[in-house]
Each structure stands twice: as structure tokens, then as C-alpha cells.
């Protein structure tokens, strides 16, 4: 079957209808009242790129960063300084991968450097979303897989209203060119709803075909109205008019003209004081991809990625789900093993650029195009979490490049580049790329808290899992974390700084 190149356009047209539906309805809803204190539930979009090393191409320049001492309240902990700066636009962009086209999003971006996985395991699938035992399945049989944060959020109590009835708890999608290395990236309980049973890779809901994904997400779709109560600014504006109307140097004719304006404002106010509902119409479905392979080949990869993004965007808009994770696995893993000095490094760099240009830019643009009832864009109200597998070199388990877009409706302070590696050289003998940093665990906790979860929602111990990466019972080591002696193998000569990291706490400066 020949692939129909009009498919994307047709889907976008359909999607546009859905997109239009909201503005049309919101135009009935007082735009003037859109400033109401509407509660917008943040969305999460996790994007995993199983490539590396990308660090130098990923992060902005360190020039201009200033140090901040963390742990100041804990006298038992050593001095630990991290570095940060606000992002500012440059002509060519802040980095090779996030070039000038991302300049418009800088205030919504947060680059994170120096976040480590405590286990060395070569290929990090689920590890960047929380299941650090997903690496090399079977290597560490004593540790049980952990649900990844997308799953934990999706099935947390009260994450969706009405017990989640009518919602699709999470979307798991991807484009996978090499299933032989598909350790997976999203894990969850086999009995998701009950949050019990063995933790497994979410194969059961994983979709790579936009049409299949659409059918599963929008099956039985019922528009979900959202009640919005307005608190218009008209009162203040009326007051402005009355002040002038009743002020000096106003003729009776002027008074009459201003009074007409006042009357019309009052008329408008009356129409605003009603409660209004928003809704969403069913978008058109994308056509099926021609084959059944998870990776549709280099020609169609862009289309495949962007159609999946379209479906996720539509699902967010129509309030069907709040959680989506995307496995962006376009090239063969062999490229992962390329090092910076290798001749083929430029190929890897190009592949990485393809990812940021076609997948990341696509989804952030879409999310940012839609203004929600609180006056912010969907991107502002979301957290787009981009993570790469390898740190500074292939298989490196530390300093995974991470990047957040959006703030989860103000929950995260964006517009920064933060390097969590210990900056105070005297306390850390291994500065440079191998400097130790903080644990990614804190990022996962930060995200889950921003999404509205409380520690009880992700306390795996209470769910029968002895090992937890998401919460610590003490303020020191986090006793449920594996100790360095158990599994630490990468840098045995290093005094590793991360025991000072407190897994259950938000990352500093965010």
C-alpha cells in the first residue's frame, strides 16, 4: 500500500476543528473573563531519547553561571555548591541541539545538568523515568522493577476526578527502530488500577501507529465540559469610565457618550456573570500507517512522530488524559556507542538534531499554540520532560542531559540552566565531566509534586515494594535506596557526593 502523504494534513485539519472548537466556544466564554482563577490540571509529556553522548550539544554554555550553596539547613551535610544562570537568547541559539528556533521558548525551558542514575547499566530505558532497575534486565535480580513516574502519576488516587471514569490514565507511545534493545521506558503495575502485581513494561498500551493510538485514546469519546466561573474585570473598567464621566471639563454631551459606554459595559458584564462551559469536538483520525513495524523507516519517521504528537496534543486538549510518554527511538543503538572522537560522531550529532528539530520542537510548538482558560498556554501549564540515556560518554550513568519545558502552571521555575554537579572543587576530587551530581530521583519527585502528587501517592513502600527511589524516610541517605556498595561500579575511586542528595525532596532552584 502506498503511503498517503496527505494524511498529516487531513489529520491536522481535523485536529484544527477540535482546536477551533475551543476558541469558538471560549469566545462565547468571556475572554474578558478568561483571566478567572481557573484551575488547570498540569499535563506531563515525557520524552525519552536513548542516545548519547549528547551532553555538550545539549546544554547551554556555562559562561555566566553563578554558584548557590544547597543544603544550607542541614549542618551534617557538606558544603555543596551548584551553578545556575537564567537563559538568554543568542543569535544561534543556546546550544547546538536547541538552536535559535527555540529562542522563543527560553523562558519556558529548564536545562538540568548533573543528574545521575546510581546504577551503571549501559542502556537506560526506564531509568530516566524512574525505573533504575530497567537497565540490563536480569543483571540485578535482587531488585524489583519500579513503576515509572508516568504510571505512578496516572494511577495516583485523585489524579483524575471521579475515580478516573472516562479518562485514559496514560498514553504510552513511541517509534522504535530497534526492538532488540527495547528495554522499554514506561513501566507499571500489571494491575494498574489496583496498583498491585508485578511491575512490567507497558507493552499492553504501547502504541507506535498514530491511527491505532487515536482509536484507543478516543474510543467512546464524550466531550467533557469544563465549568468556568468568571470574575470579570468589568467592575474596575466601569469605575474608570465613571471617574471620567463625573470628572471636570465634561460637557453634557460628553457625559452622554461616556454613559452610553458605561451602559454597554454593564450589558457586557451581565453576560459575563454567567457560568460557561467549554467543550471539545472529536478530531478527525489520522490514517493508518502502511506497515505494522514500530519504525516506519527514515522517510516517514517525521510524519509518524508528529502524528503521534498530534494525537497526544488532541487528547490533552480534550481532557482525556494528563499523562503521555514517548519513546523517541529512531536510529539504531549502534550509534549510541559512538564517542566524540569517532569519525561517525557527526552522524550521531545529526540524529540528535533530528530529534530536537522534528519531535521536541513539534510538541512544544503545539502545546504553546493553545491558550487555556487561565490565560496561559498549554505548554505553560504542562511539563515536557526530555531526557537522554547517556551522560557525557556512551553508557555513562551520570549527568543524564535533561530538559524541561513548561512550568506545570507555575510549579517549576523555568528559564534556567542549572548544573547540579558539585562545584566546590575542594570537596570533590573529580571535577569535569565525571563530577558527581545529584540523583535524578529528585527530579522525578519534583515533577510528581508539580503534577499535584503528594509523597503518599508515590510511597512505594506502602505499596509493598521494598525499594523506593521516590521517597526517603530520613533526611540523610534515603534508607530505601540501594547503597553504593551494593551496585556502585562506575567510579569506585570517587567519593560519591550523591548520598547527600535527598531523594524525596524537590531539586534546588526549581
Amino acid at each position, binding site marked *: 500500500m502506498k503511503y498517503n502523504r496527505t494524511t498529516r494534513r487531513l489529520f491536522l485539519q481535523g485536529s484544527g476543528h477540535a482546536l477551533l472548537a475551543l476558541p469558538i466556544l471560549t469566545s462565547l466564554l468571556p475572554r*474578558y473573563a478568561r483571566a478567572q482563577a481557573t484551575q488547570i490540571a498540569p499535563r506531563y509529556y515525557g520524552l525519552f531519547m536513548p542516545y548519547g553522548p549528547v551532553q555538550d550539544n545539549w546544554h547551554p554554555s556555562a559562561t555566566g553561571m553563578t554558584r548557590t550553596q544547597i543544603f544550607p539547613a542541614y549542618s551534617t551535610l557538606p558544603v555543596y555548591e551548584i551553578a545556575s544562570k537564567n537563559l538568554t537568547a543568542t543569535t544561534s541559539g543556546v546550544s547546538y541541539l536547541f538552536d535559535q528556533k527555540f529562542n*522563543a521558548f527560553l523562558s519556558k525551558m529548564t536545562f538540568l545538568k548533573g543528574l545521575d542514575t546510581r546504577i551503571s547499566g549501559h542502556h537506560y530505558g526506564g531509568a530516566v523515568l524512574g525505573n533504575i532497575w530497567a537497565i540490563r534486565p536480569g543483571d540485578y535480580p535482587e531488585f524489583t522493577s519500579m513503576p515509572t513516574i508516568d504510571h505512578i502519576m496516572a494511577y495516583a488516587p485523585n489524579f483524575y476526578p471521579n475515580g478516573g471514569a472516562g479518562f485514559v490514565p496514560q498514553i504510552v507511545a513511541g517509534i522504535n527502530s530497534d526492538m532488540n534493545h527495547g528495554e522499554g521506558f514506561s513501566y507499571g503495575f500489571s494491575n494498574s488500577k489496583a496498583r498491585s502485581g508485578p511491575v512490567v513494561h507497558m507493552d499492553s498500551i504501547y502504541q507506535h501507529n498514530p491511527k491505532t493510538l487515536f482509536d484507543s485514546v478516543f474510543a467512546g469519546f464524550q466531550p467533557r465540559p469544563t465549568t468556568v466561573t468568571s470574575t470579570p*474585570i468589568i467592575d474596575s*473598567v466601569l469605575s474608570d469610565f465613571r471617574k471620567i464621566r463625573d470628572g471636570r471639563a465634561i460637557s453634557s454631551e460628553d457625559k452622554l457618550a461616556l454613559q452610553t459606554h458605561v451602559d454597554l459595559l454593564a450589558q457586557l458584564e451581565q453576560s459575563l456573570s454567567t457560568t460557561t462551559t467549554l467543550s471539545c469536538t472529536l478530531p478527525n483520525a489520522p490514517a493508518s500507517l502502511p506497515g505494522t513495524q514500530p519504525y516506519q523507516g527514515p522517510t516517514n519517521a517525521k510524519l509518524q512522530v508528529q502524528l503521534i504528537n498530534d494525537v497526544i496534543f488532541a487528547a490533552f486538549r480534550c481532557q482525556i488524559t494528563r499523562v503521555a510518554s514517548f519513546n523517541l527511538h529512531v536510529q539504531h543503538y549502534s550509534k549510541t556507542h559512538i564517542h566524540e572522537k569517532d569519525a561517525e560522531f557527526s552522524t550521531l550529532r545529526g540524529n540528535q538534531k533530528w530529534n530536537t528539530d522534528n519531535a521536541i520542537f513539534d510538541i512544544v510548538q503545539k502545546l504553546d499554540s493553545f491558550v487555556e482558560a487561565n490565560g496561559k498556554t498549554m505548554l505553560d501549564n504542562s511539563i515536557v520532560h526530555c531526557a537522554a540515556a547517556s551522560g557525557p560518554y556512551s553508557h555513562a550513568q551520570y549527568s543524564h542531559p535533561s530538559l524541561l519545558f513548561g512550568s506545570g502552571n*507555575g510549579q517549576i521555575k523555568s528559564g534556567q540552566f542549572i548544573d547540579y554537579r558539585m562545584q566546590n572543587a575542594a570537596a570533590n576530587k573529580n571535577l569535569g565531566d565525571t563530577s558527581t551530581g545529584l540523583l535524578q530521583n529528585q527530579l522525578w519527585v519534583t515533577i510528581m509534586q508539580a503534577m499535584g502528587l503528594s509523597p503518599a501517592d508515590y510511597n512505594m513502600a506502602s505499596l509493598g515494594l521494598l525499594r523506593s527511589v521516590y521517597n526517603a524516610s530520613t533526611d540523610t541517605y534515603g534508607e530505601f535506596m540501594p547503597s553504593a556498595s551494593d551496585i556502585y561500579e562506575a567510579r569506585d575511586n570517587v567519593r560519591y557526593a550523591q548520598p547527600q542528595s535527598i531523594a524525596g525532596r524537590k531539586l534546588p532552584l526549581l
Partner: protein
Amino acid sequence: MELFLHAINMYRSGRHMSKSFRYTLLFFATSAVLIFQACGKPLHSSSSSTSGSLGTPTATAFFKCSPNTIVGESQIKRLTKKEYLNTLSDLMAPIAASEKTALTQAIQSSTALLPEDNVGQYERYDSRISINHIKTQYDIAYVFAKRVILGANRSAFFGSCMNTTPPTATCVRTFISQFGLKNFRRPLQQAEIDEMYTFYVGRGTTGLTDLVARFLVHPRFLYHIETDGIEFSPRELRLTPYEIASRLSYLYLQSMPNTLLFSAAASGQLSSISGVQSVIDQLFIADEARIRTTIESYTSEWLEFKFKPGFANNVKVQSLANVVGLTGTPDNNLRSAMLKELQEIVSHYTWDQPDGNFSDLMNGDVSIVQDARLAGIYGVPTWTPGQPPNRLPSSERSGIFTRAGSIYSGTEKTSPIHYGVNIIRKVLCDDIPNPTQAIIDDALRDPTIDYVNKTQREIVHEMTASSKCMTCHKVINPYGFAAESYDSLGGYRKNFMEYKFDTSGNVINTLTTNSTTDVSINNRVVTVNNAVQMNAEISNSGKAHACFVRNFYRFAQRRAEDDSTDSCGMQRIYTDLTRPGGSLKSMFKAMGSDMSFLNRKVGE
């Protein structure tokens, strides 16, 4: 009619006559006035005294300045749609060009819903306010506010301090002061800053959006509020420097004050007439492009382009085009080129010809037409910018009212009536009422008219021959007949050839018309051979100069003039236009620094 006019004049000046003879004259005069008042009525009396460097009458001939009057009453007016959109555009200045485009596009659907200003000759007259204005302004305010707080726009628009969450009080207050200045067109008072800041805090997470939106629907933004001046006599205010800056800005730039005007207001330069004159001089240099646009807007409103017809899409018009050698079909592109020429001619004599004056506008023969078809109509080459202007055949055309845009009718027939009415209203500023539909129907139903064998001039004459038509058409038709040397596409008729077509577009008759006519100008009957001569006579009379002054005065003051209180200002401006060295540009400038423009009289 001319006899009766003469009688009126004799009566007016006949103090030496016997009483009975004067009453006899009065009888004729009254009869004439009854007719003349209904149409062709001079809105403003004038005498025939002439003087001045251009041979035109002195200002007192047209404007009777009453002592101690400065300016007529004015009402608070809202920003016109054009002013409102220009101001929004200028407010977007801090953000990147691409984002400005995106924001402009974002508000486009709303701006399309904003009612047009089309009551009266000038858009600035329209003070109507409807629920559509209110709703659209709100919509636009929020689209604008939401967009400028996003992404890179945020720091560009508000300042980098606004990227801190939450921004400091100092940061927000600074923004209120700075944005408020642009918005209110004057610095905010401390109490106003406090109120806005309290409002911002009270709105919580949407404070910034709401703050911007409130500014954009504030009466001081949407209206030209001029209430802060010193009341130097009852209901007469001397405008403050910031109010003057705003007036000048909306007069010349059709938008909010720019840096030059705000600075001039802040420095006190606008506190004196000489200071205002100096600022206007600077403005005309620094912002020539925008002022050119304003003068073009003024021209289109003065000549009421909105009523200019399109070309009928029928075989007769096409056949006429073929017969006279016009390439292609007369269409909207041709119409646009014709009207654009009128704007460019005014612009040319204002900016490009040193000391170009109103007489040049009435009599000048330059052609700066770049449209090939229009140049073809004139029989001149197209003009290349930067090159000297081409010249029109002087016996065929001179002045703006002999250009195709002033002449074309849109059909295969000329329209002497429309041309005549335009001359009366727009060149002479005399009044002429519109005929009732019943009168028009009667005229068109006349079965005795031979449309094939009579010229359009003869047809119009017959159609308007009844006494009820002739009341007005005795005045209108002669002005219109002077333009019968042109066809309905604006082309010059060689040998006065007029073509008649059947319904298939075939030429069924060729007639010879003529354009010689007797017209009354300033109460003086003159025989002219064509519109070139007529417009020269009108120009020499000074009446068109006075009318042009009246029109720009209306444009600037946003209202019709009141001769009892506005004549002094118009007299000064007329004097400037007609003085040695006076020019269109100097007149446009003189308006902005005239006492009548720098003061405001509040209505009762």
C-alpha cells in the same frame, strides 16, 4: 439664476439706492434665495474682494473672525478604528517583529468585527459606540495581553524583571508607569499607579494579563480625553503639553505619541506656540513616511473615495475601453490606480515639489503615474520614481480634478451630475441636498428622451429640465458639463467624440459633445471651455483654497466647523496657505500650531 445672484449682491451693496428699489431687488433676491438656499447654497458667505500674492481673495473674504473667539465646542471622541489599530501596533513595538506579526494576526479576526467609521465625511466624525465596539475591544485586549506575557515577548514587553516569579512590586509599578504613559498618553498620577498595582495584586495569578487588558479598555486609552488643561475662561481649556502631544500625534501620525512628542511634552517644549511649531517641523522630517500616509488618508476622506464607484462589468464598458484603446478590462485595479494617483498628487505637491501649493494642486500638470493603463489613458509614459515627473498635455488636463480618478463614472456614460456635485461640495464647500428617490425616478422615467441620438450632456439637461429638478441642477449641471471633454473612463475625448452602444456593445452612433459652459464662481459668471479652464477659475477665486482649509480644519478638529467660533482659526490657516511662500505643507503644519488646535472649548 445668475441674475438673481446679481440682485442679491446689488441688494447687499446697495445702501445708496432708494428704499423702494431696494425692496424690489429684495423681492427678486428673496425668490432667488429660496431656490438657492435649497441647493448650491454657500455654506459660508464670501465677498469678491481679492488681493494677496496669488491673486486670491484675502482671508476675510471667506472667514469672518469674531473677536474673542478661539475655537468652537468639541466633544470627546473615541479613537477611530484606524487610530485604535495603529496605536495597538505601536504598543507592540517592544516585541520582536515576527511576534508582532503573529499578534497582529491573532487579533485580526476580532478587528474585522470592529465597526467601521463611516458616519460623515471624515472617519473622525464618527463617535458612535455600540456593543460591538465594547466586545471587540475586550476581545482584543485579552488576546493582546495574553500574547505579550508569553515566551520571549514577556521580557521584551515588560522588562526582564518580569521573568521573576512573582515579579517584585518595583518591577510591576515600573511597568504600570511606563505602559501607563503610552496608554493614557500622559504620565500616571501616583494614585493611579497605586490603584493599578492594587488591582494587579487583587487579580492573583492572572494579575498581569488583567492589568494589560484593563489598560487597553481604559477610557483614557479608547477616547481622546482632554480634561486636564487650565480653564482660562469658562469652559475654555488650554491643553496640557501631553494633550497637545497626543493631538499632534493623532493628527499627523494617526497613532499614539512617539518618543519625539513624549519628550517634547516632558521637556515643556509644547508649552508655547513656537515650541509646538518647532516640534512639528521636527516631526515632519523625522516621521515623513507616516505623515505622508496620514495626508493620503485625509485625501481619500476629503474626496470620499468610499463613494467612488467600481467599473460596471458589462459589454458597453468593455466596448468603450476597446474603442478608446484602453488595454484590458476596466476593473478594480484600474480604479485603485486612479484613486491612488489622487493621493499621490496631493502627496507630491506637499512633499516632493518644494513649496508645492494648493494652486499647483488645482492646476499642476505633473504625472507621476506608475500604472501603465492609467498612463495610457493620459497618453504619457509611466513614471519611474527618482526620475523627474512626466507632464500631461496642458490643454487636456491640469490639476487634481481633471485626473481620471475625479472624472470616471464606472459606466460607459459620463456623469456630469456627480462631477458637478463633487465640485460644489468638495472644492467650493457649498451645500447641495441629495434629490429624493421620487425625483430621481421621475427623471429616469422620462420616455421622451432619445438616448441614442443625444449626447449625455443633452440627456442630462433634458432629464433635469423640470422646475423641481432645475432648482438644483441649474447650479450643478454647468460644473458637470465642463468635464464633458472626458469620457467615462477618464480619457480625453479627441474632437469631443461620444460613442453610443447597443446592448451587445456595438457602436451604434457617434456624436459630438462639448464642454463649454457658464459657471458661477464667487458670484461671478464665467464662461469656460472645459474643466481645465473652470478649475483655473475656481483656483483663482480663492474659494477652493478656503474650502481646502475648511476640510483640513474639519479633519483636524474631528467635527464640522462652526463659523461663528472657528473662523479665526481657519482665517489664520488660509492666510498661511495663500501667503507668499505658503504651501500645502506649511498649511498642514499651521493647523497643528494654531490656537484653535491648542485649546479646547467644552460644551455646555
